[in-house]
Each structure stands twice: as C-alpha cells, then as structure tokens.
C-alpha cells in the first residue's frame, strides 16, 4: 500500500521531491518497497560468490595435540566432568568394537559404529540440560550413553530381546528412551528435523527453560525435510539447536557429490539462522558452541545451526565396506592424527588427570563391563510373539485381535517351523 501511494505521489507531483533528496535513502523511490526484501538498490550487475574457498571458519579450542590454543576459550570444565567425557567416548568405542564384531559373527543382524565422531556426541551432550529433548538420526549413541543409558539396554535393543524397551520392533541401533528425553530413532533420514521443530514450538509454550536439539548428518541435510525444518524453526521462532555432523560421507557419497555450496553452516543465514562451524573432533569446541547456542536459543526463542566437522572412520554400517570407495591411507590419517579421543587424552595427560596405568585399567574394566552386558543380552530370550500386534494404535482394533488369534492357532499346528524356543511364551 505504501508503495502504491509512493508511486502515485511520484507520478503526479514530480516537482515536489526536492532535488537534494533525490538519489538518497530518504525518498521512497530510492529504497525498495517490496514486501519480500528490503535491502538497498544496486545499479551494478554482480552475482554473489558462494565463497566456497574462503568459507566459514572452523572454530576450535584445542590443536590436534590437545593443547588449548587460547586460554579464554577453555571451558574450564572440572576434572570429573572431563573424565566423564573421556570415559563415555572410550566406553562407546569399546561397545562399538564388540557389537560390530558380534554382527560379523551373526549374533546380531546389523550395527552402526560411531568411530571418529565420539567428540560430537559427548561434547554436545555435556552442554545440554538433562531434560532437553533430543532427536537423533542414528549415529549419536554417545549422547544417550552420556545421559546414563545402561549398556544392558543398548544391547537389549540390538539383540531385540525381552528387555528391550522398544519391544524388539526395530533394527539395531534404533534406540529410544523417554526417561532420558531421547526420542526413538527411525530409519528414514531427516524426518526428525521438522518434528524436532514442532516439539520445540510446543516446548516454548509449555516450559521456558527447555531446548530441543536435533542431530543429523550432512547427507540428510540434503533432504526436503531439512529445508522444511530450518525454515519453520526460523519463522516460528523455536528454541532449537540444529546439530549437523559433517563426517565427509553419506555411505559412499563424498561431500563433493552431496553439495556444492560451503557445507551446511552456510545455508543457515539463508534461513535466518545463527550459524557456526566447529571442529567436531575437539570436544571443548563442540561443548562451547552447543552450550552458547542452547543458552541463546532458549533465552531468545530462536534456532541455531552448528555444523560439526568430523570424519567417519568406520564403515557406514555392517552392510558397507568402505574400502570400495576410499583409501586406507585417508582413514588412517584421521584415526592416527586427528581423533577426538586421542586429542582429549593428550589434554588429560598434559593436565596430569590421566596416565598410562589408568588407561590400561580403564580399557580392561570397560571391556569387561561391555562383555558382561553382551553375554547377558545374548542369553536373554526374545519377547513373546504376541507383542508383534500391540501398539499399532493405542487400543488394539478387533481386526488385529483376530489376527493375533489366527497366529496363535497357526503356531499350535505349525509351531515346529518357527524359532519359538528363543522367544518368551
């Protein structure tokens, strides 16, 4: 309406615009009036460079040898907290090794390791409130471990045994825990992103102190759901931290084939999101960025985007052999030269908070803990087959009740052809 008025005014009364005001930002004809954007006019034809080479810098606190570069950036976490970070990362690593092996031996059907990305999990988890709601993709088990999820339940889900709170419904690594505010993982990628935004919106209305954190990989960020989530979070002013694990690969697809812009962080400003890129293998950098983003997201009701750069040292999953698409040298570089666990250990040793003997003892005891949980999970029977039918709806519809009865009758006659001996009655 203002534009229309301005147009009519200019056409009918050109003499009324003083010469000194023409060509300045004062008069309406020198400032765009479009509802969609209000930046200044330009009379110079120039395409904006995506700035791929310069790019958004990678925030870090420690160098690759675990030395804090700038004292003011040291979060100065107490010793016990840093040891908890270290123990969580190494316990996760140990659990990964054993469960990966167990899949190769046919004991569980599938597994995904977190090798190389442990820093992104614990660095961010430590920066959250325990009640903050977490939506993950599938490579964030360290977040759940940091929150105290017992080994027994990780194993129960992977084995689909009778102790699995998920009732054996999903493939391994699809963990969930209501008590620890970790929403159950699902296989479709990026679907959790707009969901996390909706949850943040509802939480904003219900509890001014809680945040939502949403994890996803750089591959999932290509999905339409990611675009939807970013846009909704910004327009609806949601207290959410988007945490992208950019680990270099989406199965076999390297980042050069996933995007052409400056990674995921550079997309943030396009949506109106405050954004940062961090060294994902530096737990303190991850911690600092997540803590500040979380604090401000809640205080200001606006979303933040963190892109944590890291490297997927392991295969995508047990169904993948990554030697088919990348060199052993490349993997070894990250394993040996820039590993989040090594960097934190060097920091700990430099502080004399950890030493060889503790390392040896911890390796032994953590391995023992994992093996014990593992053996127990193996021995546990599976849930009763009737659990196949429940929780489709909150109440069981008559048709499902009939189908359950059909299966029971079927098993009475044909039960010998089914692995009933492994299942509870």
């Amino acid at each position, binding site marked *: 309406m203002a534009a229309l008025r301005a147009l009519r005014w200019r056409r009918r009364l050109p003499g009324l615009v003083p010469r000194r005001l023409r060509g300045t930002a004062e008069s309406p004809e020198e400032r765009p009036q479009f509802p969609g954007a209000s930046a200044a006019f330009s009379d110079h034809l120039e395409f904006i460079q995506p700035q791929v080479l310069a790019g958004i810098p990678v925030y870090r606190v420690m160098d690759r040898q675990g030395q804090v570069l700038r004292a003011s950036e040291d979060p100065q976490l107490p010793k016990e907290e840093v040891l908890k970070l270290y123990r969580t990362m190494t316990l996760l690593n140990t659990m990964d090794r054993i469960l990966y092996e167990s899949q190769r031996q046919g004991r569980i059907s599938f597994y995904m390791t977190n090798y190389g990305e442990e820093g992104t999990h614990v660095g961010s988890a430590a920066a959250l409130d325990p009640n903050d709601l977490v939506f993950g993709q599938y490579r964030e088990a360290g977040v759940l471990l940091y929150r105290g999820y017992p080994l027994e339940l990780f194993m129960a889900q992977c084995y689909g045994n009778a102790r699995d709170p*998920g009732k054996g*419904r999903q493939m391994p690594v699809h963990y969930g825990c209501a008590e620890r505010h970790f929403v159950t993982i699902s296989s479709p990628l990026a*679907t959790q992103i707009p969901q996390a935004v909706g949850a943040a919106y509802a939480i904003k209305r219900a509890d001014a102190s809680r945040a939502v954190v949403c994890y996803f990989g750089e591959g999932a960020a290509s999905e339409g759901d990611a675009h939807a989530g970013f846009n909704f979070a910004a327009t609806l002013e949601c207290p959410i931290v988007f945490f992208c694990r950019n680990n270099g690969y989406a199965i076999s697809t390297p980042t050069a084939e996933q995007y052409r812009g400056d990674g995921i962080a550079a997309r943030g400003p396009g949506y109106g999101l405050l954004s940062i890129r961090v060294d994902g293998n530096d737990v303190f950098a991850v911690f600092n960025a997540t803590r500040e983003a979380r604090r401000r997201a809640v205080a200001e009701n606006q979303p933040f985007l963190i892109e944590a750069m890291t490297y997927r040292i392991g295969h995508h999953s047990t169904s993948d052999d990554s030697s088919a698409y990348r060199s052993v040298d490349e993997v070894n570089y990250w394993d040996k030269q820039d590993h989040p666990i090594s960097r934190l250990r060097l920091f700990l040793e430099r502080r004399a908070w950890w030493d060889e003997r503790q390392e040896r003892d911890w390796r032994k005891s953590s391995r023992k803990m994992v093996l014990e949980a593992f053996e127990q999970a193996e021995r546990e029977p599976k849930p009763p087959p009737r659990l196949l039918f*429940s929780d*489709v709806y909150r*109440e069981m*519809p008559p048709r499902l009740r009939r189908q359950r009865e059909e299966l029971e009758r079927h098993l009475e006659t044909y039960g010998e052809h089914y692995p009933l001996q492994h299942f509870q009655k």
Partner: protein
Amino acid sequence: MAAMAAAGRALRAALPAGLWGRLAPLPGAPRRTAAHFAFQPDPAPREYGQTQKMNLFQSITSALDNALAKDPTAVVFGEDVAFGGVFRCTVGLRDKYGKDRVFNTPLCEQGIVGFGIGIAVTGATAIAEIQFADYIFPAFDQIVNEAAKYRYRSGDLFNCGSLTIRAPWGCVGHGALYHSQSPEAFFAHCPGIKIVIPRSPLQAKGLLLSCIEDKNPCIFFEPKILYRAAVEQVPVEPYNIPLSQAEVLQTGNDVTMVAWGTQVHVIKEVAAMAQEKLGVSCEVIDLRTILPWDTETICKEECFLNLEAPIARVCGYDTPFPHIFEPFYIPDKWKCYDALRRMINY
C-alpha cells in the same frame, strides 16, 4: 471482500455502454453445471443441547473453537489459516485464541505434518491443515513412515496420537486434477493412522472432535463441495461421534449400498429411485471411518457365500480427475442406479 465486490461493479460500470450486455452468455450456451447431488440434512439432534444453523465450514470452525477452548495445549496451523483459511474454516480463531495458537506456516506440506508430529510427541494437541487433499503427497513419508509408526516402533515409549490432519477433499464441480482428489485409498492400508470422512456438518463436528481427542494420529478429509452447500442444525456445545463405526442410514432387504462423504447423498437418492422405479429395498450405509473400518457392519469375506451377485464398485474412471469432463467422470446417481439395476437382474 466488500472492496473486491465494489471493484467489480466499478469495472462493469467503466466498460463502454452495452458491452456488458453484449458479454452476457448466449441463450443455450453451456452454463457451469449444478451439483450432481442434493444434500439431505439430518434432523437436529436433541441430546447435545442448543443447536444453531451451520454449514460445513462453520461446523468445522465450531469444532476447532471447542477444541481450542477445552485443551490449552491445542494449536491450529497450516497455510493461510491465520486470516480464516481459504475455505473459512478457521475464521475468528486467531483473534479469539491468540497468534501463538492459530498461525500460518511456510508453504511446505512435509514441514506442516512433520512439525505437527513433533508437537504431538511432546503431548500437546496438534491440528494441522493441508490446504487441499491433492497436496498431501509431500507429507506422505511423514504420515506413513513416521506418524503411523511412531508408537509401534518405539515400543510405546513415544507416540504422536494427539495429531490430527485436516484437508479439503473430493470433487467440487470445477476442481480438475489438483483440487478434486479423494486420496484416502493411498492411506487406507497404513496401520497406525485413522482416516475419517464426514457426510454433513452434524457428522463433521462430532467426528472431528473425536479425531482430535483420539489418541492416534488421524486424517480428517472434508468434502469441500459441502462447505457451503450443506446446512444443518448443529449443536453449539462439543459432542463426539464414535470412530470406526459405520452408520446405517436406511435398512433394506435387497441391495446394500456403501459410500462416504458427498457420495452418501448420491446413494440416498439412488435408494429412493430404486424403491420407486424398481420396488427394490435398499440398505444405505455411510462408512464414516475408512481406517480402521467397521467390518462388522459392512461384512466381508464371512458373507461372501451369501451374496447373490458380485459386488459392484461405482467410482471415477482410471484417469486423473478431468476438468471439463467432470460431469461424465463422476459416479453420479444414474451410474449408481444402473449398477443397482444390473445387480438386481443378475
């Protein structure tokens, strides 16, 4: 709206004298056809208190108003709902309940449904609007792979039962491919969601309130051709009509006809025609809930051996929904009557 009408009058007045007269349609030229059915209102119910004359969109507004009043966590969102919605279903709600409870989203159906699921995961009530059922497909993954499976896959640790998705549905006379679709069949075999389609304002309000209160994610399709055309006395206070229960509108002995939404009014007319012209007694059933559907009332494989003729399905043709050919495309009362006649003579 008044400004636009005034602009129209001004335009006609501005045209050279006689031009509007010359632009009038020629006698005998085709006019846009009237509806293929006659809406048959149900009598005002007495058990729910005071009633008010409402059309379908007003009965939807009333249901949403009741839901927002009763449940402080409830929010209504989608494209253009803030100003009242393209079909006026949300008129007045933003003013009454505030902009944090009735709000526009960006234009993104996968986002709308995903966002709604997230709200529901926290336990709050999410009422999402998809502007036309024809545009629900970007949200198909969120509905089928996520909403429907949320409770099952988590072992009941999480659910999105407090999500309801509403969308205008079905033929409207001129909607063509993308404003006429009835996509319930795509969802009808997806365990975990409920699908409900009302035939009238009275049914719509009670069924929508049941969907909103149901602890499972529901899709509620609203026959858009009835938004203004269907008028009934509808209770002002909230009331519920149960889900997964078909309604027998008329009992009969010779032929059973089942339909939902707008088509219920078509088959009611066909039943009357059959009685009058053929002396045939028809049972008329409104399915109401497509999923989980009321197999007991409808009866299926158990009664297969009792059928005296094969089941006839009268639907649109296996083509996209056409524009100018709509009168030929839709399963009108003549096609239904003819199917019935052939069935009787089987």
